[in-house]
């Protein structure tokens, strides 16, 4: 049995205001799950909770025996210093942190692995370029190469296709399908409904509260989408303490 992600009455948020409210459910090993919803629906917050960057306000997340450092995570807002003098090759190589760590050597076999990852995302020839010279799409390809080397059982992608051209989206989707084929668990926050419909078997529609979760075709019904769109984005400053105890 591999890792199974489970949310138990999970509430995540900021300053006691919930951004994800009473989420229950499980992501089975090998699932390919799209997380969709309007802006402010809690998609990024949910992912930050999964990788342990924020603590739940209530409830819990079970990682099924996986350490949160073993989850490969691509955040939405990339805090990379693009002026830093480092090459594409070295940046991709950092995906090997878990096996090489701070001191481990990088020998011949590992060099082949790195070259392989760079080739898969179509960046061969860019190895010695400084990362500052990459375009937005190339940057995203580089980050996917790094994710590839992380060799994680659970992969969490927060809006991976933002501001990326369609060719790059196709290539990166192929990589995601490959991960799915290797029965890794992949969660991706997305906005493009059509892309979700054709590529992701399962979908979680989130609007702070979970609106629907299951087979993509069933979740993406107009009634569900309408309900999600009616979510109020702003926090209510006068909100009372939540006394909802369903599933507690």
């Amino acid at each position, binding site marked *: 049995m591999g890792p199974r992600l489970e949310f138990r009455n999970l509430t995540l948020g900021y300053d006691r205001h919930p951004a994800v409210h009473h989420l229950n459910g499980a992501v089975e090993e090998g699932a390919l799950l799209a997380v969709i919803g309007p802006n402010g629906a809690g998609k990024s917050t949910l992912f930050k909770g999964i990788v342990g960057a924020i603590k739940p306000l209530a409830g819990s997340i079970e990682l099924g025996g996986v350490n949160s450092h073993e989850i490969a995570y691509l955040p939405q807002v990339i805090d*990379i210093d693009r002026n*830093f003098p480092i090459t594409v090759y070295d940046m991709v190589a950092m995906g090997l942190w878990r096996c090489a760590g*701070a001191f481990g050597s990088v020998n011949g076999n590992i060099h082949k692995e790195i070259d392989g990852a760079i080739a898969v995302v179509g960046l061969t020839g860019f190895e010695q370029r400084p990362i500052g010279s990459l375009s937005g799409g190339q940057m995203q390809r580089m980050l996917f190469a790094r994710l590839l080397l992380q060799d994680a059982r659970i992969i969490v992608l927060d809006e991976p296709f933002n501001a990326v051209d369609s060719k790059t989206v196709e290539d990166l989707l192929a990589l995601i399908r490959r991960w799915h084929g290797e029965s890794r668990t992949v969660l991706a926050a997305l906005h493009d409904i059509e892309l979700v419909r054709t590529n992701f078997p399962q979908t979680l529609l989130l609007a702070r509260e979970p609106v629907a979760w299951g087979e993509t075709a069933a979740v993406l019904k107009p009634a569900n989408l309408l309900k999600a769109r009616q979510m109020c984005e702003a926090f209510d400053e006068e909100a009372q303490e939540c006394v909802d105890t369903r599933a507690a």
Partner: protein
Amino acid sequence: MLNHLLIDPLRDQNVRHSLVAVMALALSAGPVGVFLMLRRMSLVGDAMSHAILPGVAIAFLAGGLSVISMTLGGLVAGVIVALFSGVISRVTELQEDASLAVFLLVSLALGIVIVTINGIDIEHLMEFLFGETKAKMSAGKLLVIAVNTTVSLVGLALIYRPLVLECVDPHFLRSVSTAGGAAHLAFLALLVLNLISGFHALGTLLGVGIMIIPAAISRFWARDISKLIALSAVSALVAGVAGVLISFHAQVPAGPAVTLAAGILYLASVVFGPVGGVAWQVFPGRHLEA
């Protein structure tokens, strides 16, 4: 002429000590400076260098001109300031650079008050602030600097990978490891060690010059971090040796002499450096085919 400029000073043992000291200092201050620059902490280093003054001053009052006690005094003061400003910026809304600027001003004022109240003579005060005139390095200081350099280089090698990653992509490092915080603290400790060396060789006000300016110089000549580190050490070395010789011949304190020598190299790099230098922007050459 050359004989007089370069060889004559070497007949004096103190000058030889000064030269070796500044070379040792350059070897570790150059690389540490590169990381200061890449972490946008150049001014933080400057602030910290002043922050060690009260510690040195108190140690001077307690133990006289003892190298060991002044080193320990500076070390304690430096670590306290580094930790305090780190803690203050983490638990309050104040940014770390702002809280460091406060510490810089208060420490410098405190240091000067401590030494003047206790009737230090002007010659020693000048020495504290700007380093010794005529390059008269003692064997004791030389030893401290050599030890600091050794520790710094070994330490930097040990924390190199997490430190680089913490600079370029801190979120990623946090997602795979908890080594980032430890690497940052270790780096601050190395910074303090090098500031102490800088204080012994060049005085507290300008001792940080040999750390910050060579790093800025290297940025005009290379794009790769290992080359930056090597170039920074080399330019620190050149500026240090030139500065000590200037200090000997012109009878000026070592701190300003070394810093000015580094400043001249910096100006030359701004104009002629191939990575973004002014000359290359004015005469870029024709554009390439692909």
